[in-house]
């Protein structure tokens, strides 16, 4: 019974959200459209403007931000997150509300004897940048180091919190009784799958010390991907589609791989066996490059998959507002739903692929074979 109530509530939340947003937009094109309108609305109110710029809307969703916008129908609020800057005069902390929502470098904030402006999601020194500078033209010397709790950082905390709660529940169900119950019976197959089919299979007998990391990275990416697909605040973020997040994940894999490298591993790289002596330096060079390209590929793969997924979904949604024709919304709606479903697959697949490839790299590092 509780299950049915839960299902009903989940459905109700989605439908209430969509209906209300639907009304705000004044579109009435069928169920597929609800979802599309909701997503479009969530990423910013650009839809109402006379001049409609889909690129800006998509960029706004994809990029980081100093504000966290909630626009649920019953709860509309912008949270101003703290801005933490390391400037020439030392640490400077203030609320991003000081910019009053300005993102074009017009509102000047004076703190700690310095003037700051915000251009898109970049905070720069007022005196260093000219007016109407594009965000990509701002050099590192023109801006302070930005350690702010941005939207992505909040999303990271949210993902972490959800992960912590779910996995603690799983842990608890094992200490209470032997048979997993509730959410544990859902998570257990995944844990066993990662341990047996990913870690044990690819790393070999020394798999045990890598399992905690592989499980952490798998569930972190999975949760972040899935939360990123929920189309309303505080979800719908683009955490794993941010190259810095995937960069850190890849760096961790890089460090673990090379710290656990055995003699065999380094011999394989620096003096590859079974190759003519003349070729050895060249092969070694390629192998040395390979140390860096492997985590680099991990970083790019995860980033590009999620980034592309969000961009494609939003592109389909914005097509409706660009075309302004009755024939486009049903098509775009179906395309959006199709992409959503394929993104569900991708969310799982990319978490799996990242974990699997990490395990394979660890396996390469710890393998000891006689040649």
């Amino acid at each position, binding site marked *: 019974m509780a299950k049915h109530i839960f299902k009903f509530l989940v459905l109700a939340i989605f439908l209430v959200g969509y209906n209300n947003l639907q009304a705000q937009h004044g579109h009435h094109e069928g169920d597929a459209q609800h979802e599309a309108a909701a997503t479009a609305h969530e990423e910013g109110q650009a839809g109402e403007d006379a001049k409609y710029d889909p690129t800006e809307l998509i960029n706004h969703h994809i990029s980081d931000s100093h504000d966290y916008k909630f626009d649920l129908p019953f709860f509309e609020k912008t949270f101003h997150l703290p801005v933490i800057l390391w400037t020439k005069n030392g640490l400077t902390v203030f609320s991003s509300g000081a910019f009053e929502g300005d993102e074009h470098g017009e509102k000047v904030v004076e703190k700690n004897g310095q003037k700051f402006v915000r251009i898109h999601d970049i905070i720069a020194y007022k005196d260093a940048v000219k007016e109407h500078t594009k965000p990509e033209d701002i050099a590192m010397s023109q801006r302070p180091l930005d350690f702010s709790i941005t939207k992505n950082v909040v999303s990271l905390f949210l993902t972490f919190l959800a992960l912590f709660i779910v996995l603690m529940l799983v842990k608890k169900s094992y200490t209470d009784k032997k048979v997993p119950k509730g959410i544990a019976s859902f998570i257990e197959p995944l844990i066993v799958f990662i341990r047996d*089919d990913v870690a044990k299979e690819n790393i070999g007998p020394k798999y045990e010390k890598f399992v905690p990391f592989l499980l952490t990275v798998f569930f972190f990416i999975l949760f972040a991907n899935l939360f990123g697909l929920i189309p309303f605040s505080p979800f719908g973020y683009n955490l794993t589609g941010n190259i810095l997040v995937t960069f850190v994940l890849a760096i961790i894999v890089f460090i673990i791989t090379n710290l656990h490298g055995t003699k065999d591993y380094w011999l394989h790289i620096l003096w590859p066996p079974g190759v003519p002596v003349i070729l050895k330096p060249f092969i070694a060079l390629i192998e040395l490059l390979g140390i860096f390209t492997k985590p680099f590929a991990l970083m790019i793969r995860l980033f590009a998959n999620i980034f592309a997924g969000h961009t494609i979904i939003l592109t389909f949604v914005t097509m409706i507002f660009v075309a302004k024709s009755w024939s486009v919304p049903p098509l775009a709606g179906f395309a959006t739903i199709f992409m959503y479903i394929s993104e569900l697959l991708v969310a799982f697949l990319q978490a799996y692929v990242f974990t699997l490839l990490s395990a*394979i790299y660890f396996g390469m590092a710890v393998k000891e074979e006689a040649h």
Partner: protein
Amino acid sequence: MPVASIGAGVGAGLAAIGAGIGIGRIGGSSLEAAARQPELYGKLFTLMIVAAALVEGVAFFAVVVAMGAK
């Protein structure tokens, strides 16, 4: 910079063609292999995913480079 944009688009398109051929071949071959030896399906699936991920990675390299060239 229209020429650079065209170059980026064409480049990304070519990479997509290459990746399409690659993933198509991987999928086809693993399907054939699974049809011959269904009991190996689990192992083949893992191999297929790894190979597909590698091909896809190359395509994404191209996409990211094209995005930078834009």
